[in-house]
C-alpha cells in the first residue's frame, strides 16, 4: 500500500542522505521524495512516498524516527490529507495541433507558461494520477520533456505537523 510520509528534520548538511541511506540500507523503496526548508530556516520538510505492507510501513516510520536529525513525522494516510504534485511538460504544438494541446491543458486546469512557434510548456498541478492522465492524453511523439516535482502533502483541517 502506498503511503505519504511527511518529515520535519533539522536543516543540516547530510540530513537528506541519512534518510536516503536508511531506505537503501534496509531495502525500502522510495517512489518520490521532495525536500525544502520551511518558514523556520532551521527545519526542512521532506515528503516521501513509499509503499509496503503495514509491517514494513511501521518499521519505516520507526526507523525514520530513530534518526537523530528527524524532529517529527506524520504518515499522511492516517488522516484526511491533500496531496499535490506539480509537472512541467514541454509539448510539440505546431499548426493545427496547437488548439488541441491548449484545449487539453484547459481541461486539466493546466497553464501554458512558455510558448514558441512550435511548442508549449504547460504547468499542471494535482495528484499523481491526474498528472499521469494528462501525460497519457498527449500524443507520445509530441512530448519533448516531462519534469515532475514529486508528491507533497498536507493534512486537512486542524491537524498539522509542526514543532
Amino acid at each position, binding site marked *: 500500500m502506498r503511503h505519504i510520509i511527511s518529515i520535519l528534520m533539522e536543516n543540516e548538511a*547530510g540530513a537528506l542522505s541519512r534518510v536516503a*541511506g536508511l531506505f537503501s540500507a534496509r531495502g525500502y523503496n522510495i517512489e518520490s521524495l521532495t525536500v525544502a526548508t520551511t518558514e523556520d530556516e532551521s527545519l526542512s520538510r521532506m515528503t516521501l512516498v513509499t509503499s509496503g505492507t503495514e509491517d514494513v510501513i511501521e518499521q519505516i516510520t520507526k526507523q525514520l524516527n530513530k534518526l537523530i536529525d*528527524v524532529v517529527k513525522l506524520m504518515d499522511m494516510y492516517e488522516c484526511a490529507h491533500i496531496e499535490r504534485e506539480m509537472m512541467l511538460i514541454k509539448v510539440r504544438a505546431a499548426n493545427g495541433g496547437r488548439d488541441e494541446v491548449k484545449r487539453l491543458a484547459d481541461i486539466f486546469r493546466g497553464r501554458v507558461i512558455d510558448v514558441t512557434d512550435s511548442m508549449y510548456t504547460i504547468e499542471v498541478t494535482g495528484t499523481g494520477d491526474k498528472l499521469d492522465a494528462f501525460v497519457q492524453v498527449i500524443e507520445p511523439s509530441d512530448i519533448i520533456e516531462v519534469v515532475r516535482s514529486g508528491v507533497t502533502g498536507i493534512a486537512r483541517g486542524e491537524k498539522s505537523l509542526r514543532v
Partner: protein
Amino acid sequence: MELTGADIFVRCLADEGVEYIFGYPGGAVLPIYDALYRQDKVQHILVRHEQAATHAADGYARATGRPGVVLVTSGPGATNAVTGIATAYMDSIPMVAFTGQVPTAMIGNDAFQEVDNIGITRPCVKHNFLVKDVRDLAETIKKAFYIATTGRPGPVVVDIPKDITTHKSEYKYPRRISMRSYSPVTRGHPRQIKKAIELMLTAKRPMVYSGGGVILSAASQALTEFTRLLGYPITNTLMGLGAYPATDRQFLGMLGMHGTYEANMAMHNCDVLIAIGARFDDRVVGNVEKFCPTARIIHLDIDPASISKTVKVDVPIVGPVDQVLKEMLKLLKESAETPDPTAMQAWWKQIEEWRAMDCLKYTQDDEVIKPQYVVETLYKVTGGGAYVTSDVGQHQMFAAQFYKFDQPNRWINSGGLGTMGFCFPAAMGVQFAHPGETVACITGEGSIQMCIQELSTCRQYSLPIKIINLNNGYLGMVRQWQEFFYQGRYAMSYMESLPDFVKLAESYGHVGMQISRPADVEGALKEAMAMKDRLVFLDFLTDKTENVYPMVPAGAGQNEMILV
C-alpha cells in the same frame, strides 16, 4: 581566554570524565596529539592498528558501562576503525570515536588521506558529526557523549578537520544538553506495564528471555529479583549472559542456534514469553514461522523499532529495562494474584526432563584435548570470577556454554557483527578498566591472528591478559558448517603455516605455553593465572573435529535441534 580546538578537545574529554582514549596518531590529528602531550588528565593508549583502538574502547565500555573513546587520524585511520565502530553499533555499545579530517578548505578535493568519513560511517553509527566551526566543537562533543550513552546506546563519530583544531575559541563545556530531535524514553507506559503483569500471571508455561539490553541498562539485579519472585524459568541470549546468575536453578542456559536443549524447548512450548532487552535476532529465532507457536509475547525494549520487527508481539512496552522491571516488581509485590502453583509444578517437571538430556555433554579422552574441557577448567581455576572476552566461532560458543557467568559485564564478545579479531584488543580495554582482575581472552588460531599485533601494545602497558587459544588448526565453525551442509568439502577452512605461538609471544616479551595433553590443561591454567603481572599465551592444541552441539540449523524451528 581563547583556546585552540585541540586544547578544547582535550578539556572536553577531561570534563566528560574520560579516563582513557584509545588511538593512533597521524597527520590530521597532530595538533590534538600535541595537546594530549601537554596534559595529564586523559591517558592516551597507543594501539598498533586502529581496529584494535575501537575494540579496546568497546571492551572498556562493555566492562564498565561507561563510553569507550577512540581517536584516529583521517583516511586510512578512519577506515581501519570502521569494523570496530560497526561492531559496537550492532551490539549497542556506547562509544565516541573521533576521526581526523583534512582541513575544511580541502574537503572534497581528494586530498592526501581524505575519505568521506561521515558517508562511510553513516550506516553503522547512531549518529555522526562533522565539525565545521571551532565554536561548535565543545557542544558537538557534549552531544556525541549524550547520544552515545542515552536511550539505546551506540557509537557516535565526530569528524574533526585539522584546521578546526588550530582555530581558537572561548572554551565552555555545556553541563547539560537537550535536543528537540532526540529525547529517549525514560519511563515505560504504566498501562502497558499493567497489561504485561496481568498476562504474565495467567501463564501456565511461562518463559523469560532476556538479552544484552538488561546489561546495558544495568538491570541485572532487577531482572534477578523479578525472575525469582515469579519463579519462572529464564534463558539469556549470547549478549545477555551474566545478566542472570548462570548457576541458579531457574537458569536454563543460553538459547538459540547453539543454545541448550532445555532453553530452546521451553521457548518452543511456552504459553507466555517475556522478552526483556532482547531483539529476536535470527540466531535466536531461527525460522520465524515456527517461533514460539503457542506463546503470547510481552516485549520490553528501549527501542520502539526493535518491537515487532521480526516477531509480532502482543504486549509491547517501550522503556528503559531497569525502570520498567522495578515498576513491575513493585506491582507484583502488591498484586493479590500469584503464579499458578500447580501449573508451575508441571512446567518445571517438564523442564527438568529436558534438562536431564544433558545436551552439553562431551567425553574428555586421555589423548586429545576437548575445547569444552579447556573452558570448563578455566571456569574452575578462575572460580568463575574472570572477565572473559571472546572472538567469533566455535570457541565463542564453547565459552558461552561452559563458562557460567554469575555477574553482568563479565562476558564480552561480538554478538551482532561477529567480528573476528575482537577478543584480544577488547581484553586490553577490559584490563585497563579493571587492572587487578583476571582477564581471559578465549580465542582460536584463526581469530587471534586478526589482531595479533596487539601483543606489542600489551607489552608496552604491561597488560597481564591470559590468552586461551583453542587451536584446532581449522576455522572451526566454518569447518563444522562444511561438514554438516557442504558434504565435507573443507574449502579454505584449514589453517596452514601457523606461527609458533609460544615463540611469537616470547618475541614480544610475554610468556608462551603450548599444551597438547589433557592431563596438562589444569596445571597450565593454574600456572598462567599465578603469573599476575605477565601476559601468558596458552596455545591449547585441541580436537580438530569437535563440533558445537546442540545446533539449530539455519531456517529450522527451535525444537529442531541437532544433538550430539
